[in-house]
Every structure is written in structure tokens, then in C-alpha cells.
């Protein structure tokens, strides 16, 4: 004992949801340093912006990631709409908000299952994913797709919700809330879960700020920062506060994300009640010229969309800065001095979405 070894963690590893490569310098089951490498799922999607019509680019932007796909499509559309000064109709804004919140719910439920799996609690994993199936059923019924919705277009949305679908949604939301409350007791109070998550990977508020972390990862350490407070889409008309916690360990992150699921349910109910009638989209005339930067709250945090056009059909530059890219330094900081048994949980607790990070 006492020998340093470099353990290659990933990209193919059962505990990782997505392929990231970490070179862990380990001594006696304690990790001294973690060096990340990415690029295993790099498809060069940003380069495609120069080859695809800006209207068609929505479909490419959506396919950046399977879990946060609606957020990417919405962020791209918002950036191009800001560039071309297009005002989206109210009903479309509310519809986008509703689908975005469903996307957030399914992403957080997926993450809860993966975390349970990371600390060896398979039954909880299956319970969370069973609840997630109901969310995906709602998505399929209303948009036609379970993961990749393809309802966004520059200028609005394609599809509408009718009365039957809204009634179905409300019924399902009640069922989801009820079953999640049952799961909650195990998540929050089980002794073995507490032993695996309390006090693991603690980052203080100052450290989180210095590392530039975003999203629920940052909110679990007390940083009150949620891009939805800026009131884009229909969020300006809805009533909510960001969910924060002060402890900054893995347990706090589970708490924050579970509470955000309840928050999403409340937001969807508000939006469904407030949604006005109206058009779904406006026609878009002209070519994109100039530049625009838009920030959107994805399930994993703040995502930045930058578009730059030069009065042609093809954008000159389209950049996404995804939240996982900003949380990577936080991960490397947490891994220093961590026990090897905790590496799986720490990697999963930042909610890594590597296909977003690499585009």
C-alpha cells in the first residue's frame, strides 16, 4: 500500500451515464487528482451551422443532447428570434414554458434514478424511472416524441394543446406528484442513503462562485442564481422562487433537484391555467444579421446560446456553452481528496451531460 496508480475512469464505465474520461491519480483508495478528457462523442454540431439553413438548424440543435433536447431547441430559437427581432405570440411562449418544465422533470427524475444506482440502490432507481415513464408518455401524447420533441421553430411552435390533452396532463401530474412523495421518504430518510451522501463532496458558496458553477449544483451550496428569474418566455408571469440549500454536499443536491421537480409541477399547473388563446407562430422574414446572446435555464444550469449572422441563410457562428462545461472544474475540485468509493456518486452529482458538453 502507498503506491500511486493512475486509474482510467471511463469513457466506458457502467456507473457513468455518458462518456467522459477521467485520469484518477489514486493512492490507497484516495484520489489525489483528476484530469478530464472529452471528445468521445464530439460531432462538430457547431460546424454544421455554416452548412444548414437557419430554419433547419433547430433540428440539429435539438439533437445536441437527448436529455436536455427541448432546452437546446428553445435556446437556439430564442437566440435567432432576438437576432431578427421576432416577437413570439403569447400562447407559443406558454407552450414552450410548459414543455420546458416537463423536460426539466424528466431530466431530474432520470438523474435521481442514476444517483440511486450509483450508490447501489437499484429498487429506487427503478421507481424513479417508472415515474419518469409517465412524464415521457405525456410528452409523446402532446408532441409526438418521447425524448426529442421537435416542436420548436424560429417564430413559435408547431403544435398546440387541446382540452383533452390538458385534462390528461393534469391527471398525470397528480399521479406523478403522489408517487414521488412516496419515493421521497426513502430518498431523504433512509440510513444507508444518508451514509453515502451526507458530507460527501462538500463545496462552500465561495468555492462554488470561484469555480464558476451553475444550476442545481451551485444552488445546493447556497448560490441563489436561476436564469428563469429574468422572465424569458412565460416565466415572467409565473410565481416561483429558486430552490436553494445551504449544505453543499451530495445530499443537498438530491434535495434541491427533488424540490425542483415539485416546483416544475406547480409551474406547469400555473401555466396551464393562465395560457391565453392565440396563434402558434409568426412568419419570419429576412436573413439573420448581427449577433445575439441568450441565456436559458436548462435542467443542469445556465446554458448560453450565441448566434452570429452575416445576412445569409447560413449562420456564421452558433455556439452553445452548456452547463456541464461550467461544472467540470467543480467536479475536479470535489474529486481531489475523495475516497475512490465515492467517485461514482461525485461524478453523477454534477449531473453530467457529456453529449451537451462536446456537441
Amino acid at each position, binding site marked *: 500500500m502507498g503506491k500511486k*496508480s493512475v486509474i482510467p475512469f471511463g469513457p466506458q464505465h457502467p456507473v457513468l451515464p455518458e462518456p467522459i474520461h477521467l485520469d484518477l491519480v489514486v493512492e490507497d483508495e484516495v484520489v489525489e487528482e483528476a484530469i478530464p478528457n472529452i471528445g468521445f462523442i464530439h460531432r462538430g454540431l457547431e460546424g454544421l451551422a455554416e452548412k444548414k439553413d437557419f430554419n433547419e438548424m433547430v433540428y440539429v440543435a435539438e439533437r445536441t443532447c437527448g436529455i436536455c433536447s427541448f432546452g437546446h431547441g428553445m435556446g437556439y430559437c430564442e437566440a435567432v428570434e432576438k437576432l431578427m427581432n421576432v416577437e413570439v405570440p403569447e400562447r407559443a411562449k406558454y407552450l414552450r414554458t410548459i414543455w420546458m418544465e416537463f423536460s426539466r422533470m424528466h431530466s431530474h427524475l432520470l438523474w435521481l434514478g442514476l444517483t440511486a444506482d450509483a450508490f*447501489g440502490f*437499484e*429498487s429506487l432507481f427503478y*421507481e424513479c424511472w417508472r415515474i419518469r415513464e409517465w412524464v415521457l408518455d405525456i410528452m409523446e401524447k402532446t408532441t409526438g416524441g418521447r425524448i426529442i420533441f421537435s416542436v420548436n421553430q424560429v417564430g413559435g411552435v408547431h403544435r398546440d394543446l387541446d382540452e383533452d390533452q390538458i385534462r390528461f396532463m393534469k391527471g398525470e401530474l397528480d399521479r406523478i406528484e403522489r408517487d414521488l412523495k412516496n419515493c421521497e421518504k426513502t430518498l431523504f430518510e433512509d440510513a*444507508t442513503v444518508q*451514509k453515502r451522501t451526507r458530507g460527501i463532496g462538500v463545496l462552500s458558496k465561495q468555492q462554488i462562485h470561484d469555480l464558476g458553477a451553475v444550476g442545481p449544483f451551485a444552488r445546493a451550496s447556497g448560490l441563489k442564481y436561476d436564469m428563469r428569474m429574468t422572465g424569458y418566455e412565460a416565466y415572467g408571469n409565473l410565481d416561483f422562487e429558486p430552490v436553494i440549500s445551504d449544505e453543499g454536499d451530495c445530499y443537498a443536491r438530491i434535495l434541491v433537484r427533488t424540490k425542483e421537480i415539485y416546483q416544475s409541477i406547480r409551474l406547469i399547473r400555473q401555466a396551464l391555467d393562465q395560457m391565453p388563446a392565440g396563434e402558434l407562430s409568426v412568419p419570419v422574414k429576412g436573413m439573420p444579421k448581427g449577433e445575439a446572446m441568450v441565456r436559458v435555464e436548462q435542467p443542469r444550469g445556465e446554458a448560453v446560446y450565441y448566434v452570429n449572422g452575416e445576412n445569409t441563410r447560413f449562420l456564421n457562428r452558433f455556439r452553445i456553452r452548456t452547463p456541464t462545461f461550467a461544472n467540470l472544474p467543480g467536479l475536479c475540485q470535489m474529486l481531489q481528496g475523495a475516497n475512490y*468509493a465515492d*467517485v461514482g456518486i461525485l461524478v453523477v452529482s454534477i449531473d453530467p451531460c457529456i453529449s451537451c458538453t462536446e456537441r
Partner: protein
Amino acid sequence: MTTAVRVIFVVLYVLLAPLIGALLAGIDRKISARMQRRIGPPVLQPLYDVIKLLKKQVIAVDRSQGFLIVSYMILTVITGCLFFAGVDVLMVFFILGTSSVFLYLAAVVTGSAMSSMGAQRELVQDMAIEPALLFSAVGFYLATGSFEVGSIIGGPVSAIVKMPGFFAAFLFVLTIKMRKSPFDTAQGTHAHQELVKGITTEMGAKNLAYFEITEWYETVLMMAVVAIYIINSHPASIIAAIVVILLVYFLEILIDNTCARLKWKDMLVLSWTVTLISAGVNLILLMVI
């Protein structure tokens, strides 16, 4: 027990234990799946898996791994045979400890980081189990006056009446021995842990098949140890023993599905504490009374 009976038992063990073990493993997977609201694989799935593994081509990093695994298997089978032949239980537990060293070597010889760390955790697991097993043997001696299995089951009263504390400690470490949550740090049945598959990461094809088969032999052996707590000279106790075995097995599945995985330090501390308290108190009582 006459020699003929011993020989029959040994032959039955060698032939039937893998089948019974496979059946138990299959029932385990089916019940776990139903607890998780899934349908689950067919009950004979472990048998199908092992048959498939035996047909595969061996790609081992080091050829000595095959020899070490087969040694592990043969030693475990011999231990079981000794037990069913009615020989003394203390020797059985000691040889079981020796056989696990071969498993450790088989994992370490590949030089893979995951495998080596899993092997180290396996040694820690053994450290956690040994005290309870040895205490059980001592308890048998104090309760029934003999280490020999034949005498223990021939007694007028079930051994458990005088050694409930030892039984509790033994059940606790059974979870570790059978590699179930919360104590599956060295090798979980599911590959979703940080060490990939832990000690069996670098084992494939025939070697993995031998490992699985040895697991079955060991499960049957452990269940048999549970049985000798219950069996006495009355024939009805055999039925009681079978019922208790099934209940114990179900309890293990239940615990597996309701706990997360604990780290090895917690496992060591917990198992030694439970052993010392429950078995220790029982020991003092038996020596005093």
C-alpha cells in the same frame, strides 16, 4: 452417521448442489425483479448463463488465472464435501477461508486496477466474516458438546435454542458472504458500481463460469450451516430447517432491495460490532450457565 450415509451425502452434494444453487439464484433474481415491478428473467436463467459462458473462448490476461480459479472451485467443493461428510465444523470454516485466498490471487494476477481493488476489498470482506464464523463453531461446541456436524444434528434439542446470539451474528455476515447490498463492495451482482464488476472484472468465459458455479456450491453450504442450527434428532426438524432456510433467503433478498451499498469501512465496523455484541454475549452466557 455410518460411512455409507456420509458417502451418499457427499455424492449428493457434489452432484445436486450446483443445480440447487442455480435454482436459488434464479428465484433470487425473479423475486428481486418482482419487488422492483419488473417481470424478471426465467428462473433457470443462471443455468443458461453458465452454459453459455462455458462455450465461450477464453481471453485471459494471464493464463495462471484459470489454474487459480479452478483451485478455488475445488477447495470450496472439498470444504462442502467435508461438511456433508459430517466432519468438524471448525476445520470447514478454516479451509473456506483458505480457498478465498485463491480467489484473491486469481483477481490480482491480471494487474487490472479495478480487479486488484476489488480483490483487496474481498480480503476485507473475509476479515469481516471470519469472527462470526469462528464464533459459530465455538458456539456449537459449547451448546452441543462437539464440533462434528454428525453429533450436532443428532442432538435432542436444536442447537439454536442455546445459541440465538450466534445465529443472529451468522445471519448478519451471511449478507456479506452472499454479496448482497448493503455489503456488496467487492463484487455486486450488478455492474453499476465504481469498480465495474470488482473482483470478477477480468474474469470471462470459463473462468467466470467456474466462479459462478463455486458461488452456487458456497450458497448451498451456507444454507446447510443454517440448517444445522435447526436440525435435531427429530425428523420433523428437517422440514423446519427447510422452512427456515427459505425464510432466511427471502430476508437476504429483501435486505438487498431496500439498502444502498455501504463502504468497506462501515461494513467492517458494523459486522465486528454485531458479532462481538450478539455472539459475545451468547458466548459468555453459555460459559457461565
